């Protein structure tokens, strides 16, 4: 279990051009506190790439390999193999992609890398739509959410399909570790990052990372919404380990309205 007080001071990503209150950059900043400086990031055109590796603002203090949108996990495999050939042991290779780069266009490469059993961690920072390109729906957009490609109108009622069960998909690859997390629960999230580091073979984490402009809420609510998503049962904290899936039970779920009301993307549902 990670102890918050014992996390290192060093910031391994700082000075990014992320929006004020970005849940994604918070997810990455926190993960790097556990991962440490012996980490290589592999990432793909997304908000994250745009705000951390766009010259002249390079915000990572660890190596970062940028690759095409569908290829995060494939490039991860290459980096893992290359570091092995170079005899560089103990370096963690971390694929980082948004939900689109993970559950949609990146799924084939991720499936390949999971199935090969390469030793890496894949972190999907899930903000539930294509935010970098202007909030289009992805396979991770929740039912009912308004996006620019699931607009609300006299017929349209937002996203028509429930969110893709990505944890189920990765678990079906029989990998050693997979989990969902929320930046609203950092102790839980970072302990999962630590577990992911400790297993031999691929580990997958999907961390809910609210997006103020994409979801349509005030930037100071990022962490609150990340918590409310869990408390209202919209974002189960689940763990797949040793072939078993466990889901953290919410004893007294809060009304769904508490989670939906602050977000413009759900405004049409509340009337």
């Amino acid at each position: 279990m990670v102890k918050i007080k014992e996390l290192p001071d060093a910031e391994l990503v700082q000075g990014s051009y992320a929006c004020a209150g970005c849940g994604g950059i918070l997810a990455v900043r926190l993960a790097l506190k556990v991962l440490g400086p012996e980490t290589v990031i592999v990432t793909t055109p997304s908000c994250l790439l745009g705000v951390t590796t766009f010259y002249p603002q390079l915000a990572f203090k660890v190596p970062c390999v940028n690759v095409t949108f569908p290829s995060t996990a494939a490039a991860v495999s290459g980096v893992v193999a290359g570091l092995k050939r170079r005899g560089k042991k103990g370096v963690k290779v971390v694929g980082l992609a948004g939900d689109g780069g993970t559950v949609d266009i990146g799924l084939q490469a991720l499936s390949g890398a999971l199935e090969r059993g390469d030793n890496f961690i894949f972190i999907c920072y899930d903000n539930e739509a294509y935010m970098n390109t202007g909030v289009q729906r992805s396979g991770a957009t929740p039912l009912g959410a308004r996006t620019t490609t699931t607009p609300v109108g006299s017929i349209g009622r937002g996203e028509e399909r429930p969110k893709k069960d990505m944890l189920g998909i990765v678990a079906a690859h029989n990998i050693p570790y997979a989990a969902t997390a929320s930046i609203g629960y950092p102790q839980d999230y970072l302990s999962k990052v630590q577990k992911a580091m400790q297993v031999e073979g691929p580990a997958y984490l999907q961390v809910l990372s609210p997006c103020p402009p994409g979801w349509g809420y005030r930037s100071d609510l990022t962490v609150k919404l990340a918590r409310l998503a869990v408390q209202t049962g919209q974002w189960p904290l689940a763990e797949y380990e040793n072939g078993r899936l466990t889901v953290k039970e919410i004893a007294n779920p809060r009304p769904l309205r508490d989670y939906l009301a602050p977000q413009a993307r759900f405004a049409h549902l509340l009337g």
Partner: protein
Amino acid sequence: MRAYLNGNEAVAAAVKLARTEVVAAYPITPQSTIVEKIAEYIAAGSMEADYIRVESEHAALAACYGAAVTGTRVFTATSSQGLAYMFEMLHYVSGCRVPMVMAVANRGLAAPWTIWADHQDAVACRDTGWIQLYVETAQEALDTCLQAYKIAAHPEVLTPVMVCLDGYVLSHTEEIVDVPDQEAVDRFLPSYRPEYSVDTQRPYVFGVGAGPDLYSAFKYYQQQAILKAKEVIKEVDREFQAHFQRSYGGLVDLYYCHDASVVLVVMGATAGTAREVVEYLRRQGEAVGLLRLRSFRPFPVEDLRAALSRARVVAVLDRDCSFGYEGVLATEVKAALADLPAQPQVAGFIGGLGGRDISQEELAGIFRHCLEAVRRQDRGEELVVSGGWQK
């Protein structure tokens, strides 16, 4: 060692001799036997490398890229649809200036579905920033792969190289190949360690984002580097000759061009058949020659102008088509010769598509067609020569 190998086996032998460290590839006919052979070498313990069994060609090139930025020597191979599937990664690799070698067993693109040779696949990737070298024999496939590693990693080039060999006609045809000794290859091609690589002690971002000014600047220097490769390809070919007593002329390979009034320009294995035809017609007193374009990118415009300036008709045989215009090579040769003082007529022929056999008779027919135009001019008519399509 005198061996009897097909083109694919020759490529695999080169990849092993180059002490390639990481291979990632996806099967596709007629490339597959290259990577099967490499997998066999690794399984038998005769080659020390990691073989990444990827789920697609797109992933193959992404994995090669990931391995290459760690500072290892990498290889992949593909063909046709697979190369098309790699298209966006091709730009990423060349743009990031990652040296690597990819063998392309040239094959037509569907539809109609085909598995047989033409150059459409690689020619369609002309503008991806890769160096493209086309070979004529299995021996040249082996030798060019070794040269390609050296060209790609040259500090002033840093550009990936495609080694293109005609599907089946080379990939699946066995012939005598001299396989050099490991020690000799080691002397020619030292191990690869770039100036910087993925290193937690010295972190780099690979493939940064860049605004309009900087993007343009990076692309300018990318262009300078691939143009520089013209010299480097020749230099490496000369160096190769010093080590192995074999040379391929660098960018172009000339055969009886010096006094030819009709020169045929081709890429790939067709050149072999064309040599027989040139020799035959020469014996009959016809002033014909052959120019085999070895380097399609960078395009050897100076060498073409020098070699073709005295020809009266240049016949270009494309195994590809830029639909809506003509054979790609024909356009490029025309452009290269455009402002010569005595500009030869260029006649574009399209043939050998989807594995269509290019026989000696057909090549002789092209020569005779062009020779006839020259004779008409000698009789005082205007020099007019048409091209054609092998339907």
